[in-house]
């Protein structure tokens, strides 16, 4: 099998699928040309992520990484969500095939983009350390120029 059981479980039964109409932060990364777009919605109270939903266009691993990433940050403080790495996402899924690692990067970036949006709405400063561009997708404003 190409994917681990964990990946297949999160793909076939994705957690936290949906949208939040009155979200406090929304992040969207990826682009249609490359074949994956992730959109994450956050509800935040007292710096705690009380609810999170996602919508994803992409392959099974894109859907599975989005699903597990939302599970990993739900109920956690914002500061902890920012520490979510693609490596942690891969580990939580019991591994991803090498060609699918970029999906986990996208999931990390989608969470960060949603937090960045939350900070922006709150008028808070962004900590540059957490929002550096990996150049892997079109998540940042550099946009198309370094899409795959």
């Amino acid at each position, binding site marked *: 099998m190409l994917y681990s059981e964990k990946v297949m479980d999160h*793909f*076939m039964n994705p957690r936290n699928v949906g949208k939040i109409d009155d979200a406090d932060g929304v992040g969207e990364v990826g682009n249609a040309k490359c074949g994956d777009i992730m959109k994450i919605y956050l509800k935040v109270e007292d710096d705690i992520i009380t609810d999170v939903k*996602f*919508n994803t*266009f992409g392959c*099974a691993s894109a859907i599975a990484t989005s699903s597990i990433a939302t599970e990993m940050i739900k109920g956690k403080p914002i500061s902890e969500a920012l520490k979510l790495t693609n490596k942690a996402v891969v580990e939580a899924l019991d591994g991803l095939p090498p060609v699918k690692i970029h999906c986990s990067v996208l999931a990390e970036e989608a969470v960060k983009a949603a937090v960045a949006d939350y900070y922006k709405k709150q008028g808070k400063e962004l900590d540059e350390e957490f929002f550096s561009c990996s150049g892997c997708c079109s998540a940042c404003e550099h946009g198309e120029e370094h899409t795959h």
Partner: protein
Amino acid sequence: MLIYADNAATTAVSKKAVEAMLPYFTQQYGNASSIHTAGQMANKAMQEARADISNILGCEPKELIFTSGGSESDNQAIVSAALLGAKKGKKHIISSKIEHHAVLHVLDKLKKEGYDITLLDVSPEGIVSAADVEAAIREDTALVTIMFANNEIGTLQPIAEIGEICKKHGVIFHTDAVQAVGHVPINVKEMNIDMLSFSAHKFHGPKGIGGLYVRKGIRLSPLIEGGAQERGLRAGTENVAAIVGMAAALKEQVENMDKNAEKLKKMRDRLMDSVLAAVPRSRVNGDRQKRLPGNVSFCFEGIEGESLLLMLDSMGICGSSGSACTSGSLDPSHVLLAIGLPHEIAHGSLRLTFSEYNTEEEIDYIINAVPKVVSRLRDMSPMWERIVKEDK
């Protein structure tokens, strides 16, 4: 329930082919090159198979060599024609943008070695124009290689027309007929084909065996050096069981070709019409009529092909997709891009290919399942959300 709808990838070996092969594993296992009785019995079976297949293709037994399959045949045909051309100072090759990688990657390699390669565009329906082939022929053209039927979208190319043009201009014409042999009528002499590649496992024969027809007078170069098998053109002990199985499968397939094609076209057209009617923003790739009887190729906007495949698989349907994620590269299928689809639509492709072993009940099940899976994936797709918003 398991519905196998990926017959362009490979097929089940027919019962007749299996039965024909069995004696050659445990009873008549001699080496076809040996001069003793056991060897000569194997040799006789192999020559009978060669005669049967040649008869079906419309060539002489001497014009047919056995190979390991389509990729090897394509490689040997193209490399041989390129070497023959180079001897006469001809280093130009014409092909199309929708060829199989077994052709395209050989051409890439030849390009690096100094050959000039022209890859023709195809129509939005996925058909190469014979007039374009003629217009591209130059003084130094060594070879035209155009596939008989496309493996992804099933489109049938104007092979007889191209053959006539190549004959007129004295250019060698090779066709990769891996998807076509056993499925549509082929006669190499009537169609002016100089070289033709085929593979047994696409027509209910075993894997790992195929053939290359080469018109008398065109000198092949061996890819594999060694013994004098296949008149020195392909070394290696002949796989007699597989060769016998291939001939049995092809004979059976050709005997039933009309009947099978009729059945498959009916299933194919019903599936295409029903899914197009049930799923908004869906399309069929490739010409609706000029296509293999068993090929259906869809694109669904707003979703990605690999997810679609895996969800269908979980419902017992085995299909295929030309999405980037299934191709192992970052770009979707070169065929879907060549017919003019943008990347975002090409990512959402689904290929379902049938054989006569499929049933109308299976088509019913697929017609019911595909729209459900598409809408499930669309419900969680931000791209679909955008498409719906733009429509309003």
